[in-house]
């Protein structure tokens, strides 16, 4: 049970990453590799501020803002300096590695003695359960109060972020953003600066990804300069699973799907590890999975006779 709760918690934290990746990869069709750096950046900024006795809320928000700045940089490199999108991301990601080391001052910051989001969730949780028990019974299972509270806390954060994102995509600015990814020529002819929208979108995307990193560090109790490696592929895997789960193009369902995909993917990984999968193979298998998910639809189309959409 503890294993399941742990997997679900990390899955939900990484759902924020998945939402960020969804924004750049799917809304803009922009392969933004900055994510690998901004996960760590969010974790680094939040951790160092926690060490300096900032409140978890402020530290987490600062992590989010750091991601916003990183995304803005990638966007500016791409739009104003006309650097290829993939390369802009790689440049910022590489630079962030040094920045992260400077922010942290060393390659790893433990947070065991600081008050983190997890501690706050725990104190709320035990107050809610009205006692100082460290575990309780849920449907016959013994559940740690700390684990359950953290899960509930992260769930609320993801719910709020998902809702805000969904509502944002229905505003004038949000619909312009979707249209920019869909048809830049059209939205430009309607008076929207495509450059500005891409910068804004990447800022938002990396903000979410850094937020994910900030929460992840507080959950696992440390920030590490290596923790971002392969995170883009991880997020992409979640988004792809989510799309398969909901099977719809509706924006609300896709947001829900990305969250569900992230949790499901994390659960699958937890089970696979339990069954004896070598943790060293995890990134290889994730990459293979994304590869398979990317080529399968095209293969299926080739095998099946083409069905023409009915023109009316």
């Amino acid at each position, binding site marked *: 049970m503890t294993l399941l709760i742990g997997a679900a918690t990390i899955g939900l934290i990484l759902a924020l990453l998945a939402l960020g990746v969804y924004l750049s990869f799917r809304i803009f069709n922009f392969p933004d590799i900055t994510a690998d750096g901004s996960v760590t950046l969010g974790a680094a900024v939040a951790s160092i501020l926690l060490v300096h006795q900032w409140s978890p809320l402020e530290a987490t928000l600062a992590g989010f803002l750091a991601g916003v700045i990183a995304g803005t940089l990638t966007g500016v490199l791409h739009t104003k300096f006309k650097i290829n999108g993939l390369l802009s991301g790689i440049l910022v990601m590489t630079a962030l590695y040094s920045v992260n080391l400077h922010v942290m001052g060393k390659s790893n910051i433990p947070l065991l003695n600081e008050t983190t989001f997890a501690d706050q969730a725990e104190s709320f949780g035990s107050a809610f359960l009205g006692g100082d028990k460290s575990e309780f019974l849920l449907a016959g299972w013994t559940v740690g109060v700390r684990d359950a509270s953290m899960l509930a806390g992260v769930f609320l954060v993801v719910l709020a972020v998902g809702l805000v994102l969904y509502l944002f995509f229905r505003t004038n600015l949000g*619909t312009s953003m979707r*249209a920019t990814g869909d048809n830049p020529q*059209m939205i430009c*002819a*309607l*008076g*929207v600066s495509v450059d500005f929208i891409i910068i804004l979108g990447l800022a938002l995307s990396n903000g979410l990804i850094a937020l994910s990193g900030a929460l992840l560090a507080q959950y696992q109790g440390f920030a590490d300069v290596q923790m971002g490696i392969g995170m883009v592929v991880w997020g992409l895997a979640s988004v792809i699973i989510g799309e398969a789960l909901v099977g719809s193009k509706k924006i609300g369902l896709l947001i829900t799907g990305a969250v569900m995909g992230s949790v499901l993917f994390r659960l699958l990984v937890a089970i696979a590890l339990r069954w004896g999968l070598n943790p060293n193979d995890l990134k290889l298998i994730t990459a293979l999975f994304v590869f398979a998910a990317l080529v399968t639809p095209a293969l299926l189309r080739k095998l099946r006779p083409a069905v023409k959409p009915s023109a009316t």
Partner: protein
Amino acid sequence: MLELQNLVKTFNPGTPNEVRALRGVTLTLERGSFLIIIGTNGSGKSTLLNAVAGTFLVDSGGITLANQNITKLPEHRRARLIGRVFQNPFSGTAPSMTIAENLALAARRGQPRGLGWALNPKLRQQIRDRIRSLNMGLEDRIDNAIGSLSGGQRQALTLLMASWLKPDLLLLDEHTAALDPKSADQVIRLTHEIIQRDHLTTLMVTHSMQQAVHLGDRIIMMHRGQVLHDLQGAERARVRPEDLLNRFEAVRRREQLDAGVAEMLQSNYI
């Protein structure tokens, strides 16, 4: 209303691919006039439209629209004054978004976009009413993705979007060339209706001599980046499709002559 002063544009200057697309185009258009642009392939008619729209900045010359000098304005800032319909029916709409969302985007053409709701019941009702006037049966499908519609339907909607806020200038770039004849007729009829109703100043590029003769109140024929003929007033009223074709034929003969002369010079002197 629209004033083009000696527009010059060369693509890929100084390379073997150099194309002198516009070689000094000067044109004045009155408010409410409907100008048809014809010309051979590569004559610069689409380039002229794109120069006005701001797809690129011209090398020299000036563009004034509605008493504003827009020569240096980037494309998205000209959009406040200009409505456009492209040749490709897929270019004017965002396929994965709904009909209503696409029109809502067009309803704020050139205006700042903040965090207000893109759609509200009042706007939805307006959208439904205007779409009903197309007589395409789309008014009950405004929440369907626009990508599921046919080229003709999408082009009709693009036209509706371009004219939603009456633009100071409407640019139509061979907007029926990619459609089947029936859809093309429908879109042309709609074009005529909208331009008549709102008295829109219009620039339209076309390959169809029929359209050139039946629509519009002035025809210019472009050749090699310049205005070759400018038919207006009584001359425009008399013109028939055959006359236009004859003028194309004359251009073609002269081209061949030019090519022949060039060859002779080359064999004699090189």
